[in-house]
């Protein structure tokens, strides 16, 4: 493991021997003095700390001594209904990949995804990885000013969901009717380490499920 300081209030831990979300979970329950919170992102963990309380040498031993979990299975699987007919960039994505819309859809639905991180904006899950035939789609040349809440985007090897209206650069291939974040009531149903399974729905089912929560 390697520890890179990011200023005097944060560390980035890399070269992990466990999945980043497991390390973040273990650190968050460690009650290590001065540790405010630990956050997973792909291959790294961010550690946010109070410099007055934090014991840097003790933290290295804590990392070395983390228990190795027997199973690396995702914590749980969430099924998220999505409607490809509401994916405004689906045709453009198919064109850029040189395959049909139906092929994009079947590749996107071909397997479950792991949530590697939540970030960018409240509740945005970074999911991976896309199968090869739909990988490598670039970001939009210029981000759109507004993205419909629930929009499902793809770029590079990642797919993700905009839970709220934000300027967005990922091409949009589908939309979920579910509400995926509500800061006021601390509703954050998706966590790093969860497995996400997309389920195809049509527009009439989309309208029926609009606004529902897990």
């Amino acid at each position, binding site marked *: 493991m390697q520890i890179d300081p*990011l200023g005097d209030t944060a560390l*980035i831990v890399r070269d992990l021997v466990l999945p980043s979300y497991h390390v973040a979970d273990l650190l968050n329950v460690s009650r290590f003095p001065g540790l405010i919170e630990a956050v997973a992102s792909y291959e790294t963990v961010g550690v946010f700390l109070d410099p007055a309380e934090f014991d840097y040498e003790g933290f290295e031993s804590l990392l070395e001594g983390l228990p190795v979990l027997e199973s690396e299975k995702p914590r749980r699987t969430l099924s998220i209904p999505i409607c490809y007919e509401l994916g405004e960039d689906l045709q453009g994505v198919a064109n850029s990949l040189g395959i049909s819309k139906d092929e994009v859809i079947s590749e996107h639905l071909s397997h479950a995804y792991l949530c590697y991180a939540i970030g960018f904006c409240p509740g*945005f899950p970074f999911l991976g990885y896309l199968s090869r035939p739909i990988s490598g789609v670039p970001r939009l040349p210029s981000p759109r000013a507004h993205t419909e809440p629930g929009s499902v985007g793809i770029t590079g090897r990642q797919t993700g969901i905009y839970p709220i209206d934000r300027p967005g650069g990922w091409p949009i291939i589908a939309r979920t009717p579910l509400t995926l974040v509500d800061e006021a009531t601390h509703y954050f149903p998706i966590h790093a380490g969860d497995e996400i399974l997309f389920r195809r729905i049509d527009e009439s089912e989309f309208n029926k499920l609009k606004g529902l929560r897990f």
Partner: protein
Amino acid sequence: MSLILRQGYGIATIQGAPNPGYRKFGVPPGGAFDMISLAFANALVGNVSDLPTVELALFTGTFESTSKHLLAAVGAEAEILVNGTQLPNRRSFLVSKGDSIEVKSFTRGCRLYLASKGGFFHTLEGPLPRGAELESAIFEGPPAASEAPEPSSLANEKLRIVPGPHANLIDFSQLEASTFKLGVKMDRVGIRLEGPILGSAPELPSEPSVMGAIQLTPAGELIIHGPDGPTVGGYPKVAAVISADWPKMGQLTPGQELKFELDSLRQARIMAERHERKLRSQLAELFKKGPSDSTG
């Protein structure tokens, strides 16, 4: 039991202590951008240092009081008028039902903190709209007249930094020698710098970020993350502003010049401790003077 925002230009938000613990859901901790001014404003009305205040960023506008309140404003230099009469800076003042509180003419610094005895209730998220009602406790009693010192955050032409995880992408001696200019692209999310291009960034997997982190964009621009910055960022982090200088970031204004000074991490930790100690002793001093110095 409130102040009503009658009209305003610029950004007014309710801000107090940061609220960590939700980064894993993509929610940054937020909190007042200039914690020194926040603490002084609160101290002038007898509050603990991090109660919610109104953070006014380059703001011009008017509030109306619906009852008796004890208020104080500290931070950027600006004019504050109650019913048309200008008040001295960095002192507490009483308002009554129907009084108008006008804030205008920011001449130095970016953010002014308006505190009320008992704090403002933190029920409003995001920029306050016209007509917003900011609830606070009624105050019956004499004002505390002690004056807060000028917040050190207003002296912000230089920020101290430490190298970040991707420090190898730029030349730090060149960075230290450069003068940057601040454009209009700055808010609580981030501050974009205009200046020499010191390197260019490869695409990396997203990694955690923090307030003060300096990201290098593919175009070679530098962006400093603010209290509402992203919890995870895709651009390399070449450096980070030391926490003792975060309050100064909150007082940066469009058009001003900015330089960086390289520090060691060990020094940054000592500075964080020294910063905390100085603030605590200044607050203790304010509280000591407060009640005895009352003008009634």
